């Protein structure tokens, strides 16, 4: 049995999946570029000036950035502390960060509304916005935490902490001046994932009646289907490019670290 040779069966199985995964994307690109009268790129040029577009995008970008700041402030010190002092609790924290992966956002929103029912958080639009941000932080937890956790495993936390302490640094200074700079790639990684999750999030924002990007896109698809399709392609390309971008930064960082170690 020669396992090095690629069998025709492998190509056949690959082609079936390839067709299933690529043809709908091609159809989407085709639909965004055609009208009954012929080919056009109007959908791509007009979508940016459609009323409501800028507001919806800005709302989600702002929410995404706030979510990233909250997640960083919450996850980085916690993960650092767990790595340094409470390593036996890592499974517990990991369990907490995995729950959002299995609890669908619709149930999370349902629970949030029920739990905060009658408090200021459900009575005003600012309150609902706080709930929205809380929901965003929760659903991006698993990805953000894993990214930070992997970043912390790659650096020698104990040595860095003890060196900083022996030079007289307090906890705040250690986190801000020593740990944070070493975690830039990990935080960036988590931030991109969080950002794309928030930008594409539909359930929580629509159930809390917040003017976010995805509900706007659904609304747009009823009026200008081509523009909504064009917008999906743009955001798909954006996600893809950010992932490539992160892996390039990650590789460059890893390469630099390897060179520094072997020197």
């Amino acid at each position, binding site marked *: *049995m020669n*396992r090095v*040779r*690629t*069998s025709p*069966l*492998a*190509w056949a*199985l*690959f082609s*079936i*999946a390839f067709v*299933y*995964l690529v*043809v*709908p994307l*091609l*159809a*989407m690109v*085709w*639909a965004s570029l055609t009208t009954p009268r012929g080919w056009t790129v109007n959908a791509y040029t007009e979508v940016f000036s459609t009323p409501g577009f800028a507001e919806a995008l800005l709302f989600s970008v702002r929410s995404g950035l706030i979510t990233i700041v909250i997640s960083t402030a*919450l*996850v980085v*010190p*916690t993960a650092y502390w*767990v790595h340094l*002092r*409470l390593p036996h609790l890592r499974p517990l924290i990991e369990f907490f960060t995995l*729950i*959002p992966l*299995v*609890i*669908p*956002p*619709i*149930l*999370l929103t*349902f*629970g*949030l509304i*029920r*739990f905060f029912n009658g408090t200021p958080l459900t009575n005003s639009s600012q309150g609902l916005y706080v709930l929205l941000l*809380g929901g965003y932080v*929760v659903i991006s937890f698993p990805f953000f935490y894993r990214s930070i956790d992997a970043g912390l495993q790659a650096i020698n936390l104990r040595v860095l902490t003890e060196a900083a302490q022996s030079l007289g640094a307090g906890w705040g200074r250690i986190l801000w001046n020593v740990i944070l700079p070493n975690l830039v790639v990990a935080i960036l990684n988590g931030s991109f994932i969080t950002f*794309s999750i928030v930008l*594409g999030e*539909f359930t929580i924002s629509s*159930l809390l009646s917040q003017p976010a990007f*995805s509900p706007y*896109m*659904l609304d747009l*698809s009823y009026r200008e*289907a081509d523009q*909504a*399709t064009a917008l*999906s*392609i743009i*955001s*798909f390309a954006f996600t893809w490019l950010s*992932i490539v971008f992160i892996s390039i930064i990650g590789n460059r960082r890893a390469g630099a670290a390897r060179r520094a170690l072997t020197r």
Partner: protein
Amino acid sequence: MATTTTRQPVTAARNSLQLPFSISIDWVGLLPFLAFVMVFLILPAWSIVQRALTDGTGTLTLSNLLNLTNPTIAQAYRSTILVSFITAITGALIGGGLAWSITVGNLPAWIRSAVLSFSGVAANFAGLPLVFAFVALLGRVGLLNQLLRPTGAAIDPQTFLYGFWGLCIVYTYFQIPLLVLIMVPALDGLRREWVEASENLGATRLQYWRYVGIPILLPSILGALALLFANAFSTYVTASALLGAIGQTFAVTIVVANQFRTDTFGDPGLGYALAFSMIVVIAITVMIYTYSRNRAERWLRRAE
């Protein structure tokens, strides 16, 4: 002798003083995180369970759960479970073929890395963009109907897109890459030595898969199926964007959302019972996944 007996209680006392002290200080560092998780995750989830098991006044009751036999809910549950089951299988077949071709099948390395990175993006490619893509392909004026027009044939979107089979076709799209992400590590764990050993013993390739390959992979396959099932079961956005108002018949999540927006059944307890029942179904599939993953890891560890 006398010195040791007097010293012992002192050290013991110091330890017992120190231990709780250091534990409490270390735990303080976790408080912000634990408080956030409590307020925004655990307590909200718990409040669903609590309301599902009590009536409006707070008395324990099973009537909410018993009311789940409501015909609308029963119909939605039947469809959802069937769609989740079918797409777990179709996703496993097509995705399994893909995962096999880039691991055991020895496709070129660049195809392997392209498939893996594409899977990372496509597994999250659910919701509105996915629906747009399939409407562009299978819709009334979609690509397929435009291509079929010269032949006179046509695809009816009412049958193949906006209904039960539409959900199956569209869900399969995000099930394939998810399965690839789960199964590639398991397939990578299959050792070449095992193939060679079975060959030396005179086994055919079919016998190798029948008696070695498939049994080793079985826990991973079962775990992957459970995860795919849960993935389809909890899908909401894709179903609601595709089906709109008629989705109530096909997806439990849409029933929950409708109940949430307007009190569809005139019985708030029923909505919570429905949400609770979903949590139970998902918990069971996650338990199956965890169990089979532990079984699979036992094999991988033994192989090392």
